[in-house]
């Protein structure tokens, strides 16, 4: 298992955002974390990215507990915009390039041109769609083992969405890289996911291979989601 999560719990004032989540992800797979807003998806991602500490439980990536060691193999694309608004696109990428071994700046430029992102503008002026594209450029400019995407397609217009998915499939080294993706818009990712886990109120309520679940339940991932949401 590339990623192993054991009984992770996370408490915030007044609420348990994660209440005993356990699962494993094999190397090379694409896992979807599906659930409504507030189900705990983002918290789970932040713990896997080691920017938030769990209250209980453990998570490991490549056998090592998540932390400073695992960050060098994890590319985290949070839902929010993590980039410096005052930096120009190229400056921000150059900054990041210093930290990640194997960063390929030519690839960054290639991806930016495919995704039509200007490299000399301030990041604060980019639209939401362009910010999302920039996150993808970051994810695939260096050989990350694990790519964590929290709502990568949230609120993006269809043309940008298609470009992003196109890039994703063009760059994703299937069999080598592992992707964990979350969304509450299940219809957008219906065909992208191999395995899924459904979360509700901080727990996993259903998990398995997407195609198998389709066969068993006789409906789409969206249908299953609606059933679960109740």
């Amino acid at each position, binding site marked *: 298992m590339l990623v192993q999560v054991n009984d992770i719990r996370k408490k915030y004032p007044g609420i348990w955002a994660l209440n005993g989540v356990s699962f494993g992800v094999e190397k090379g797979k*694409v896992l979807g974390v599906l659930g409504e807003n507030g189900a705990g998806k983002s918290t789970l991602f932040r713990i896997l990215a080691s920017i938030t500490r769990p209250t209980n439980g453990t998570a490991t990536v490549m056998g090592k507990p998540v932390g400073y060691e695992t960050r060098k193999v994890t590319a985290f694309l949070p839902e929010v915009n993590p980039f410096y608004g005052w930096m120009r696109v190229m400056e921000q990428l150059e900054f990041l390039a210093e930290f990640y071994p194997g960063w390929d700046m030519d690839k960054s430029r290639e991806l930016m041109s495919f995704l039509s992102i200007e490299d000399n503008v301030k990041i604060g002026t980019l639209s939401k769609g362009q910010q999302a594209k920039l996150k993808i450029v970051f994810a695939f400019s260096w050989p990350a083992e694990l790519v964590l995407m929290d709502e990568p397609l949230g609120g993006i217009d269809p043309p940008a969405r*298609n470009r992003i998915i196109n890039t994703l499939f*063009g760059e994703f080294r*299937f069999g080598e890289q592992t992707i964990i993706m979350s969304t509450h818009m299940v219809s957008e990712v219906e*065909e992208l996911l*191999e395995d899924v886990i459904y979360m509700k109120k901080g727990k996993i309520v259903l998990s398995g291979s997407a*195609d198998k679940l389709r066969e068993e339940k*006789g409906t*789409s991932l*969206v249908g299953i989601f609606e059933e679960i949401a109740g």
Partner: protein
Amino acid sequence: MKVKLDPTRPIYIQIMEEIKKRAVRGQYKSGEKLPSVRELARETEVNPNTIARVYMELERDGFIFTRRGQGSFVTEDTTRVAEERIRLADDAAERFLREIGGLNLNADVRKKIIDRIGIELSDNAENENI
């Protein structure tokens, strides 16, 4: 390859069906190279791992073969394709019969339908080699 996918059925089965149909229809000739896993994933917007699985299953079925470093190709064994053609036709017939069975048709309507099927199929037979 633009395929309308039904999200309520396993995706990999639908892609497999589509590839088989295209080979049967002659859109993919015997021995013709299929798109790479990545290309097909991009075209269909389906997870490359799913496509990889499709190709693996098709190869296990004997429908395609893979040459290392060169890609995947439709089988040159025309009988295999013919088998598939017959299987698809049988499936279609089954679906048709299931639909029509519950309709309680009288002899007249039934005859009209049988005639029509006869005409359509023989027209098609001129265009393809069965």
